[in-house]
């Protein structure tokens, strides 16, 4: 169907890439043209636009949440439970131990997963802590999952997953935290589903990140790589603002905050390298 849609010229591609950059901070160069074009052509067809110009005008008019539909088409959402479990082990063995040193039982511990995609990471954090952290009942743990893509947030709230997403969970864990639906799909138990709050957040929008409050630990994996230098700096500062002093941030294993911003301290643990917002302000 997309084949019948109009082609996109170089100038149109550039205008659209500029528009996406301003809205999301994501950079789409000529090298990603095929990836971009396919999705744009799909949206042109889906909105019954007669040309790129007509679609672009529709997009800019803000009608019917088209910007959101377009952003949703560009986000990458494939993930699974207990991905990077060495970071989860570091969370329960090291990071939370440091965070609770200045808290008392009953205090809040806030953990943020951004981008959270369809919920595998924030639910993994919840399951991991219930299974592996001895103090899990002593504190009020709030887990927040955020993403720019509203479509994946809807899926995250529904909490239904296929076999592939659960491939790293034992049958015991699946039996304990999920109930089987049909056709090899499982849904997170209601109690656990209600333990995670989901919200729509664009990481480079300071107002949106501020509205989430401050966290003890942030998981922000494999998103900064999509940003250019300017957006990456803004995102790093938003993440800094979103951490409590002494709070930690975990990035993807190919990412390094030291290459993005000097705001954070590097912390090396046996299972992971993470970054910390300094306790004391440095002069």
């Amino acid at each position: 169907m997309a084949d019948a849609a109009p082609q996109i010229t170089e100038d149109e591609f550039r205008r659209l890439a500029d528009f996406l950059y301003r809205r999301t901070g994501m950079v789409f160069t000529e090298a990603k043209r095929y990836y971009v074009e396919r999705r744009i052509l799909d949206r042109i067809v889906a909105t019954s636009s007669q040309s790129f110009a007509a679609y672009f005008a529709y997009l800019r008019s803000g009608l019917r949440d088209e910007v959101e539909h377009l952003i949703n088409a560009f986000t990458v959402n494939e993930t699974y439970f207990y991905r990077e479990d060495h970071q989860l082990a570091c969370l329960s063995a090291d990071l939370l131990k440091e965070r609770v040193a200045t808290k008392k039982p009953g205090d809040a511990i806030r953990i943020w997963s951004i981008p959270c995609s369809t919920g595998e990471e924030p639910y993994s954090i919840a399951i991991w802590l219930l299974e592996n952290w001895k103090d899990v009942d002593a504190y009020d743990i709030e887990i927040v999952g955020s993403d720019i893509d509203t479509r994946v947030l809807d899926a995250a709230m529904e909490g239904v997953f296929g076999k592939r997403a659960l491939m790293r969970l034992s049958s015991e864990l699946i039996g304990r935290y999920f109930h089987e639906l049909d056709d090899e799909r499982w849904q997170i138990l209601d109690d656990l589903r209600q333990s995670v709050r989901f919200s729509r957040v664009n990481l480079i929008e300071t107002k949106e990140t501020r509205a989430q409050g401050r966290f003890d630990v942030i998981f922000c994996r494999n998103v900064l790589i999509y940003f250019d230098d300017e957006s990456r700096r803004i995102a790093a500062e938003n993440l800094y603002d979103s951490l409590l002093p002494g709070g930690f941030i975990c990035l993807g294993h190919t990412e390094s905050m030291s290459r993005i911003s000097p705001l954070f301290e590097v912390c090396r643990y046996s299972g992971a390298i993470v970054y910390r917002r300094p306790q004391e302000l440095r002069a």
Partner: protein
Amino acid sequence: MPLIRKPSSPVESPAPDGRAISELLATGSDDERWNAARSAPMHPDAVPLLAAALSRERVERVREAIFTALAKIGSSESAAVTLPYIRSDDAAQRTAALDALRAMPAAAAEHLPQLLEDADADVRLLACEIARAMPGDDASLLLANLIAREGNPNVCAAAIEVLTETGNVASLPSLAHCAARFPDDPFLAFAIKVAGDRIGSR
């Protein structure tokens, strides 16, 4: 099973209060100056306010926020405010300024021809790094012209490293000419060979 047993009331990270950005940048606490710098790009007089703040600011994270604000503005003026700091004796300041300039490549590019002719070799060397963020053909032309006349082998090496990444076949004669000008420098010979091979294979 629920991990939360009582509703939480997240404490929002502090946002700037109603005071003028200029006042906060000048007399606020560290947090207030940090927030004011981050909000400054929306202010019509942001560039001179940030320039004044940068000249007196001593707290690294606030300086970082000022540089980010200048990068976000991304104008020729904001690049001009940033440029003097690549001459700083303080390595952290030089790096911070360079990172900020790389985050506003279009604005920084306007100043690049002058920087590549600066009397200070360290500035010319750092300017090569700014070129890395520019569109490939523009950067290649400037850097090819630089290595055709540059007398400092370290500056040549920096330019060649960027050309290895961004160069095109039009850069090859300048690379060969540079190799001929430094016949006794084995590192440059090696770097030029690598650059030539990479450009040739593209």
